[in-house]
């Protein structure tokens, strides 16, 4: 059996999840030039938000009823935390030294992890996540898992919505203006504070959808799930050109495919047997990142990074 098409699909699915989370990094960076390292944890709390809704619903509720409610739960929790973080952790530091909000973000990330660890019932180890009933979809030699169907549908919808929002709406244009030059945008009547909050909130919505996809795909959520995935999504954002929302999605897909290919094929190259396999996938992902950044420091779709120096 030729497994290449299936591996490509695996990579694209993993990559779309990276992409959904990467959007949050890239949007916030594009507007306030802040790497929100707590974004991975916002993703994680979204997963627990969805799980909470499932636990509150009466037992035996159909997944078709529960899933939309779970998405709403995930979005509410993630957005509330993202907006709260912006208001209480980042806004007071705006205008301060660049490193201050970065350090705050790392602190916030740990605080959120351990808050869930301490207070969420039985979250000290992984919690199982409800699954979509039904069988996988078979397309020739490619199988799409039941748990991935959500991702296949949600990721393009989310991206289309985002493109429409940023390009066609007043708020979206306000975001573009603020990203280009916040002071001038302010003079033109754009409420930049509001725009920043919206950027955080939108990023959180995408992360929440990503978290539901994660739960459905892997069947578990745990308090540490945002750490590694957040780092990968950040990598995807840098790879695609941080600040560029299409770049985030492309970067995610490239990263996902690269990891999958590294897992499946690197150890089949003669002389590389020791450097292959899934345990080396992260290494190859970073090799790719470094190669891209050496050739194109602004990332795949990025523009000049230093335009405001």
């Amino acid at each position, binding site marked *: 059996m030729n497994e290449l098409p299936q591996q490509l699909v695996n990579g694209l699915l993993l990559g779309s999840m990276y992409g959904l989370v990467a959007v949050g990094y890239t949007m916030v960076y594009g507007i306030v030039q802040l790497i929100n390292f707590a974004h991975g944890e916002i993703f994680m709390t979204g997963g627990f938000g969805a799980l909470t809704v499932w636990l509150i619903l009466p037992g035996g509720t159909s997944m078709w009823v529960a899933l939309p409610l779970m998405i709403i739960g995930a979005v509410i929790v993630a957005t509330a935390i993202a907006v709260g973080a912006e208001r209480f952790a980042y806004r007071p530091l705006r205008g301060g030294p660049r490193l201050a909000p970065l350090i705050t973000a790392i602190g916030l990330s740990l605080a959120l992890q351990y808050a869930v660890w301490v207070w969420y019932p039985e979250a000290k180890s992984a919690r199982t996540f409800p699954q979509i009933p039904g069988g996988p979809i078979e397309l020739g030699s490619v199988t799409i898992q039941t748990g991935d169907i959500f991702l296949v549908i949600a990721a393009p919808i989310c991206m289309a919505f985002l493109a429409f929002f940023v390009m066609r709406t007043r708020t979206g244009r306000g975001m573009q203006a603020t990203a280009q030059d916040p002071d001038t945008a302010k003079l033109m009547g754009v409420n930049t504070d509001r725009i920043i909050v919206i950027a955080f909130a939108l990023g959180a919505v995408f992360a929440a959808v990503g978290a539901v996809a994660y739960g459905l795909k892997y069947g578990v959520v745990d308090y540490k799930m945002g750490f590694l995935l957040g*780092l990968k999504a950040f990598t995807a954002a840098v790879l695609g050109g941080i600040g560029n929302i299409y770049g985030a999605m492309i970067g995610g897909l490239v990263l996902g495919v690269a990891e999958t290919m590294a897992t499946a094929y690197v150890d089949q190259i003669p002389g590389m047997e020791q450097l292959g396999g899934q345990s080396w996938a992260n290494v190859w992902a970073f090799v790719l990142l470094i190669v891209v950044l050496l050739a194109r420091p602004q990332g795949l779709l990025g523009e000049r990074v*230093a335009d405001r120096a």
Partner: protein
Amino acid sequence: MRNRSLLILTTAVTAGALTLTACGSRDDKGKGGDGSGEGGGITVTIGLDAPLTGELTALGLGIKNSADLAVNTANKKEYVKGVTFKLVALDDQAQPSSGQQNATKLVADKSVLGVVGPLNSGVAESMQKVFDDAKLVQVSPANTNPALSQGPNWASGDKKRGYKSYFRTATTDAIQGPFAAQYVFKDAKKTKAFIIDDKKTYGAGLAGTFKGEFEKLGGKVVGTQHIDPDTKDFSAVATQVKSSGADVVYYGGEYPAAGPLAKQIKEAGAKVTVVGGDALFSPEYVKLAGAAAAEGDIATSVGAPIESLNSAKEFLANYKAANYKEAFEAYGGYSYDSTWAIIEAVKKVVEGNGGKLPDDARAKVVEAVQGVSFEGVTGSVSFDEFGDTTNKQLTVYQVQGGAFKPVKSGTFGG
């Protein structure tokens, strides 16, 4: 230009952080011993080290509760006259670095005369020397890597005991992997294996011993993979398993990764049975994989099923009566026996010294543990010249109706 250098800095921080994935340590505080017992008696502290938080919590808490039960039972029975036992449990989060910190802490507490734990072979590696230097006895209920007791060259027959203070009540992978291979090949009639491990001391060792025996029996290894247990995306591996045509997957590793791995392999459409060692033998595995996906999967575990042993009846009744929140899991019985081995040794030392602790109590306890022999929860407990248990019993468990049921018990005959 500042923006760009910040970006480079954060990228570097990210890359660094990835390599340190999930590191960290926390301590149970407020449990330090003051060494004083009530009524002028002697208080002997038994230390315990296991993952009490993190992914392996279920197994760790089972170990802790069972040791706690042993200590309480000894106190209630006044098993050692004039001695009150106390348990100090430390959390290693399954991290070797935390384990070593805990070991140092236990060594520093002079009232500690023995330590139960840890769960992970990799953690034990980091603790052995610390304990041995302090002549403090360590009895692990769960380490299965042969190298811990028999030295790094055990496989080639050059067995050498590295640390005199190290003992264990669990049998080793040297017999667990081959035992599984024999069952898979002879009883389950599977001939094409895909072998996956997590590259850790325990997992890689187990997968290696399985592979050796499986090939010796005439089975074919159709593929191998190494996974990163911190990731949850195993889709690429699952696809490889499917296209390899394997009828059995042997996984050397622990249930937090094994559950999602089995789920993804089964969902990819591979018609395989997932087989693993004692670290898969947990209800958590079935939960993580999903009952439907886990059905028919196999885990070997050390010893006979506890429920079937006469010596275990009292343990089971007491455990139930003590109302612990968590189940005793795969290593509860071994943990009880490990603790009891230390209690027996302390008894011998104290009674041999006119009811008092000698000055070199720790060294004396190490000697005494080497000589213990009693009927424990898991059968007869005593140690051979390497500090390994003399009880070589193993059992094959299979998921039937959503729970592990024993299907075959026996001793490995080479």
